[in-house]
């Protein structure tokens, strides 16, 4: 297979434009690379201004503190965390449109995948960046790497988001290789110098040989499989970052799946908007047809229905049981101050899009775009409600604090919103707008199905294309599983080294010392000895004449300097003297070491006292630290398993890039040596 073969294949494809894809994908992909129109420049300028305003607002917030963004102790989390959830959420469109459709073999996805994957990369980067204004000390963000708290959900959020970003980039970048090869080798003159250099570098060695195609398909299949659990993990951990706090409503066990569905829902809506925007901007109507929008609309409707169901399931049990906090938050949400916004979301963000898809006369491009326009901001509104309601609830008083938007977070949120089209417009000035290779492949496949005639040049390998892809993925999966197993094994072995030794406590025996009290009119003498783990205090009371004083009440006290000097006296109890004038009290010492005791006798107006010191060797404090929580020890195992899984994911993703690079290099060498 040489470049000649590809040219022939392309010509072959051009000849067979029998289906809906009447426009050549290559021509469409090259369109953004031409001289930009005035509208393009104006749009980029306007969007850049919005982004710059947002950055300026962030600088203002850095100088003035989070207070200028409307935050207070009554509303400690608000708009930024909702932004993070929303923006990372919309990046799921890429995962669903590209990965799920790829795995299910939906061929109609081909003209949408690049746009969807690009949107995923751009939005997840913006969403991750929005954590910066959320933090009051963003300069210390690096501490998540240098001193992470492994029990904190936010740390795992960080890990999950970083892994998902890497996965999205790999998922976006791998299919670029054949496209860049095609454009670089056949349309080099239309690319311009810089793009041509970039394309040549990325696609070096790619000639579209069957073996290369198989490896790429295998790698993409594997990344498709991986990107779905990765996406699920990101929003689950985000939800758990809420759920692991002590706020009402955030605890609901349905939050993680609800977050995932919410993300998919808003993500598909954003994909519809992005696709519609680029379709009209670059005249892709020939490639992206109303049928694409309707199909995306069906996905949207399914997710809308699912999300409405989950929202109901989220609210019903809490409202039914009516715990104090949950009841208060739900009252505020459903009939209280936030009710207007909640019902606005429910109708405009939930039911209306569903209707727009369901009704035949709105089931067209305009209808789907309107549905998507409704969904995206309404899902942001829903996140705001989910954050602000519980965050402003005072768990002590049951009252609600207020959160007031100021221009600062609004500007930052708008900047993040404007950054999506801006970055996409810039991105598709650099990389091909459409997944050319995939479109052509799908076209060939559908031609193949229609005509049932094998193509002349790639006949031997092509009929088994799908099986090969599966096989490639499976064998890689085996290897990955092996590597993961080794990792886990080593990690588990390492755990045996994690042990803790109880520090031995040395007990130094001491003998009791004895002192007598000072003498006054009636006299009291106090002695203490340690016996059997107790301190036995003996007070001897004598009258001024030296006679034992019976039936007198003697109070015993403990003298302590723990809370400063002069020493404080703590009443331990009292005892009445017997015939010999002796009163005794047994005291259970709490700490070892020298301890002072005092005995007093209230002889009329002037009490008499005596004190003594006892060196305590055996003590028993009534205090016992709280026992560890039942599952506390499981955490260590969980952490190790998670690290092993994350490491395996990163290694597998890196291995896919390496695999594709390698097969390109290998074939290139063959091609040059045989030439």
């Amino acid at each position, binding site marked *: 297979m040489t470049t000649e073969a590809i040219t022939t294949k392309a010509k072959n494809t051009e000849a067979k434009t029998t289906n809906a894809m009447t426009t050549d994908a290559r021509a469409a992909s090259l369109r953004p690379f031409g001289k930009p129109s005035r509208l393009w420049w104006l749009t980029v300028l306007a969007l850049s201004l919005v982004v710059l305003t947002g950055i300026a607002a962030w600088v203002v917030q850095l100088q003035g503190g989070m207070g200028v963004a409307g935050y*207070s102790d009554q509303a400690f989390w608000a708009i930024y965390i909702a932004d993070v959830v929303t923006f990372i959420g919309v990046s799921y469109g890429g995962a669903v449109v590209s990965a799920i459709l790829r795995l299910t073999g939906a061929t109609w996805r081909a003209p949408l995948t690049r746009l969807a994957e690009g949107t995923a990369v751009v939005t997840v980067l913006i969403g991750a960046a929005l954590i910066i204004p959320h933090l009051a000390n963003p300069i*210390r963000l690096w501490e998540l790497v240098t001193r992470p708290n492994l029990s904190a959900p936010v740390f795992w959020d960080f890990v999950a988001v970083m892994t998902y970003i890497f996965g999205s980039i790999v998922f976006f970048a791998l299919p670029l290789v054949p496209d860049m090869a095609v454009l670089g080798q056949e349309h080099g003159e239309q690319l311009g110098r810089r793009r041509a250099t970039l394309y040549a570098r990325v696609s070096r060695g790619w000639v579209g040989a069957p073996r290369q195609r198989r490896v790429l398909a295998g790698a993409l299949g594997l990344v498709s499989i991986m990107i779905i659990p990765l996406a699920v993990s990101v929003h689950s951990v985000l939800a758990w970052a809420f759920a692991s706090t002590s706020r009402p409503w955030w605890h609901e066990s349905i939050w993680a799946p609800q977050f995932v569905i919410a993300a998919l829902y808003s993500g598909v809506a954003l994909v519809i908007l992005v696709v519609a925007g680029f379709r009209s901007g670059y005249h892709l109507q020939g490639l992206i047809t109303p049928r694409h929008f309707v199909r995306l609309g069906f996905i949207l409707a399914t997710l809308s229905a699912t999300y409405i169901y989950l929202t109901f399931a989220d609210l019903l049990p809490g409202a039914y049981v009516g715990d104090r906090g949950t009841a208060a938050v739900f009252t505020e949400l459903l009939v209280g101050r936030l009710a207007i916004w909640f019902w606005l979301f429910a109708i405009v963000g939930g039911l209306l899009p569903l209707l727009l898809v369901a009704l035949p006369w709105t089931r067209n491009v305009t209808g789907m775009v309107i549905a998507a326009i409704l969904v995206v901001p309404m899902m942001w509104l829903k996140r705001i409600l989910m954050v602000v309601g519980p965050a402003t609830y005072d768990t002590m008083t049951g009252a609600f604090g207020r959160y007031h938007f100021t221009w600062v977070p609004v500007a930052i949120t708008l900047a993040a919103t404007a950054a999506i089209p801006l970055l996409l417009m810039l991105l598709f000035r650099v990389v091909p707008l459409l997944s050319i290779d995939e479109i052509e492949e799908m076209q060939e496949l559908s031609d193949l199905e229609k005509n049932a005639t094998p193509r002349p040049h790639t006949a031997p390998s092509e009929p088994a294309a799908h099986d090969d892809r599966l096989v490639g993925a499976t064998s890689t999966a085996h290897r990955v599983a092996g590597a993961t197993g080794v990792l886990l094994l080593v990690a588990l072995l390492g755990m045996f080294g994690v042990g803790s030794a109880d520090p031995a406590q040395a007990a130094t025996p001491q003998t009791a010392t004895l002192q007598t009290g000072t003498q006054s009119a009636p006299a009291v003498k106090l002695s203490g000895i340690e016996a059997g783990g107790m301190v036995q205090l003996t007070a001897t009371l004598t009258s001024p004449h030296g006679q034992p004083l019976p039936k007198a009440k003697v109070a015993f006290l403990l003298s302590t300097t723990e809370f400063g000097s002069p020493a*404080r006296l703590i009443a331990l109890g009292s005892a009445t003297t017997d015939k010999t004038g002796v009163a005794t009290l047994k005291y259970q010492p709490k*700490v070892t070491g020298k301890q002072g005791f005092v005995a007093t006798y209230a002889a009329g107006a002037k009490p008499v006292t005596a004190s003594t010191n006892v060196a305590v060797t055996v003590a028993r404090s009534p205090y016992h630290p709280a026992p560890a929580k039942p599952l506390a020890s499981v955490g260590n195992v969980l952490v190790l398993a998670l690290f092993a899984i994350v490491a395996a994911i990163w290694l597998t993703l890196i291995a896919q890039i390496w695999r594709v690079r390698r097969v390109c290099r290998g074939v290139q060498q063959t091609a040059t040596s045989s030439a």
Partner: protein
Amino acid sequence: MQSHPTHSEEGGPVGPPPGATPDGRRGLSRRNLLATLGVTAAGGALALVSFQDDAQAAAMAPMAAKIKASAHAWCMVIDLRTCDGCKGCTMACQQRHGLREEQTWINVYDMKDADGGKFSMPRPCMMCEDAPCMYICPVGANIRTDDGLVLVDTEACIGSRACMAACPYEARYFNWTDPLPPKRLPMPSTPQMPVPEKGVVGKCVFCADRLPQGELPACVSGCPMGVLYIGDLVTDIAVNGLGKNVVLSEFLRANDAVRFKEELGTNPRVYYILGHGQSLGGGE
């Protein structure tokens, strides 16, 4: 399952480049490389394990193990029978720590009981033995002293406010804007005696700098009614600002002391003796 056919097929259509190793050995070398990668990653994982061991000391593990050997276990007893809600504790605390008016490290809540009777309830940091804030901080900026005090390392705080979300007692206050100008000579900020600083969280520290000196926390000495007792669970002593000294365990038992939101399992170290200021003659 079908990995072998793939292998042979992979080399098939193209054929090995001259001078390259045969196909079988190439597969082997790939395996070697994967193994090398695996070992490297495992080494990394081990490093993380040992690191995690350190981190665990700070946050993860049963904290109880650490508390055992310490000489003190500071706690507080709040006798609601004598509280008249004068907020003297709050003011003394704010004065000492240079706090804004809304930063009530010890806050006196006006509460209502079931009969509509009113009572006042001071709330300091509960110094939980299983503190939710310690688990949730992404950078482990909460530290726990050997004496069981939960303190904030303001030099590490990234300002995520996760701890504010986690605290079931609303005991944490953030420095949303620049703090008040210091009234005293500038002093270094320590977890025991934090100096307010924009962008970090703050909370009651039980005046951790005073306790080792045998001094009472500002709120305890600032309470004119003797409501607040500072105590030590190990030595079993508690004292208030009016010179009342008690055997802690007996005092708690005799007065049916309870802990706030016991059901959450946070094991707070603040005990309440329930009441509504009746010893003052009011509220009954």
